[in-house]
């Protein structure tokens, strides 16, 4: 079972330059979280603060009741044994070959015999598909291989918290997909808390349970993946779609003049650099490879999310409901009817906010006893298409095409 990581009011600056301020988030135990953000928003710095490599000026990082920012060095080294960290470049020891690199934590922290070490190491090397390269030095292999070897080393002690700094950078899309699957499988097997820092949209859409984004020295949002994936926030929309139109510029921020100029270019028919379809919207999450146990974290998360569902934005609610299996959906509706006397969140904000407090207290009593919630949590249930399952009233379709985007050039094409 993974460990919960609670970050409270964390602020970090280098000299006078603030990196980010007042970041508060909780990585729920055993769940997979992704932290998005444009380059240079301090994502890697955030990871380093989580492991205590950098000391933030303010705030706390609490793991197992220990605050990493203020505890003595000795405790820090103990706590770090819970972590497996994949660095951006793998951070392998250049003087050791791959085998010794992966074996390093075992030799340092365990009293296993050399044969046991060899067995474990080879299984991890096999897991990342590097068999045959274990005798090579890090300087002799490609960047992608270094990264995979770094992952093998991070996993060798069966960590309870796995932090990945841009696991996709330097990897091709296929290997990235394998890596994503590997992380999900790992999560199903050892139930580790995972935080992935990335700017890969595909990873962000398919892998995590929770999704957050750093921008302009702040945590824009952090919560269930559906919230960010359906967000109306301009930064999020721009980032997910990879457009030039929006608040993110080439440098840290854009000024009004530049925004206006870009908008003018767009209106004149110059592409904004994005693809045609809107990348927002909830897509199915990766499931563990068939044959592996279902992810316990998925069940726990569903329970948690359903309890706070009415507090989430409207579009996120629909995204979540649409991703439920038919059974779960019926169960939720049933429970909803019992607790509030109403069928569904009928349309924008009619139930949610008004009865929020009352519901919350009830929810916490009733939800955990939901029948069969844990019995068959995350098996691949053939998911009914959005329209064919009992539809949420007044919201016949899923959320993705929330807002028609200004694409004048396409309209012109249509006219011709």
């Amino acid at each position, binding site marked *: 079972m993974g460990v919960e990581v609670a970050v409270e009011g964390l602020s970090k600056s280098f000299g006078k330059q603030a990196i980010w301020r007042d970041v508060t988030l909780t990585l729920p135990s055993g769940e997979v979280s992704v932290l998005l953000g444009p380059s240079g928003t301090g994502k890697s710095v955030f990871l380093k603060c989580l*492991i205590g490599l950098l000391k933030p000026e303010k705030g706390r990082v609490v793991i197992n009741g220990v605050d990493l920012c203020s505890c003595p060095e000795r405790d820090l*080294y103990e706590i770090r044994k819970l972590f497996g960290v994949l660095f951006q*470049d793998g*951070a392998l*020891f*250049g003087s050791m070959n791959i085998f010794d690199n992966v074996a390093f*934590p075992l030799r340092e*922290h365990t009293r296993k015999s050399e044969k046991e070490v060899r067995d474990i190491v080879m299984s991890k090397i096999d897991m990342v598909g590097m068999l045959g390269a274990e005798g090579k030095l890090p300087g002799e292999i490609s960047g992608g291989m270094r990264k995979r070897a770094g992952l093998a080393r991070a996993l060798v002690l069966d960590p309870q918290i796995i932090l990945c700094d841009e696991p996709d950078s330097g990897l091709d899309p296929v290997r990235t997909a394998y890596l994503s699957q590997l992380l999900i499988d790992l999560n199903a097997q050892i139930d580790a808390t995972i935080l992935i820092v990335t700017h890969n949209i595909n990873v962000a859409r398919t892998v995590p349970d929770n999704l957050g984004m750093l921008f302009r020295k702040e945590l824009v949002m952090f919560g269930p993946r559906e919230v960010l994936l359906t967000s109306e926030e301009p930064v999020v929309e721009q980032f997910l779609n990879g457009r030039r139109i929006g608040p993110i510029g080439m440098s840290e921020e854009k000024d009004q003049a530049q925004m206006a100029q870009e908008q003018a270019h767009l209106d004149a028919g110059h592409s904004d650099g994005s693809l045609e379809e809107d990348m927002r919207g909830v897509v199915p999450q990766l499931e563990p490879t068939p044959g592996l146990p279902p992810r316990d974290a998925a069940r726990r998360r569903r329970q948690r999310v359903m309890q706070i569902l009415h507090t989430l934005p409207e579009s996120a609610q629909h995204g979540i409901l649409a991703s439920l299996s038919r059974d779960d959906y019926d169960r939720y509706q049933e429970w909803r009817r019992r607790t509030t006397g109403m069928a569904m969140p009928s349309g924008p904000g009619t139930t949610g906010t008004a009865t929020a407090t009352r519901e919350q207290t009830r929810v916490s009593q009733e939800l955990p006893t939901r029948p069969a919630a844990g019995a068959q949590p995350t098996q691949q249930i053939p998911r009914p298409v959005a329209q064919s399952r009992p539809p949420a009233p007044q919201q016949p379709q899923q959320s993705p095409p929330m807002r028609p985007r200004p694409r004048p050039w396409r309209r012109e094409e249509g006219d011709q």
Partner: protein
Amino acid sequence: MSTRTSRKTSPLAPVAAKATGAMREFGNIFAMALDVIVQMFKRPFQAKEFIQQFWFIASVSIMPAALVAIPFGAVITLQLGSLTAQIGADSFNGAASVLAVIQQASPIVTTLVVAGAGGSAICADLGSRTIREEIDAMMVLGVSPIQRLVVPRVLAAMGVAALLNGMVSVVGVCGGYFFNVVVQGGTPGAFLSSFSALAQLSDLWVGTLKAVIFGFLAGLVASYRGLNPKGGPKGVGDVVNQSVVITFLLLFLVNLVISVVYLQLVPAKGA
């Protein structure tokens, strides 16, 4: 607004900032020295790393040290030889050169070589590991880089300095003997017999102690600078440079202190 005016009115501000920066560096080195000393006694001892480093430092230092020692001993003897001849104390030439070589020249030459050849390599090695995030990775894996990397290096530098000091002393005295007897036409018997006239065993001890302390400083400064490079590969070059310069400065300062204390504590022979 207030900050702007205050910045304008105090031209000393950047100097003060530099000074506090230097003090902070010094404090950090001191803190690391304490760390290293504490961790030296912590098991498990990294024997393999220690032997590797020891062998490496020794192999790069022996030849240069010997080659520097010969002219160093010679120069001291030549200088003292002409001086003692002028005041009619030729017979004490040997004693004077032995004192100078063993107490002062030998430990300093040894450490200059250890810092210049071994320390710079240590610094460059640790520096490049740091910028490749290897050190971070090691800390994250729950292994203290001080205990794992720095302690063996510092111990190796100390050991090599102590042993090398003996060799340099012998080579330096031999060089002095050669130049005094062969070049200046001194008497071999007088040179050798005056050894015991002024020099005493504690001179040898203090020379060795100096070498050990200087070796510690060389290893420590090299490791400290190596673990704190600023900004990429160029930063590594800079810190290597700085580590050698800082070691040399510290060396002469500490040498002065030890010499003064020694001369106060241990009375000269026959005094």
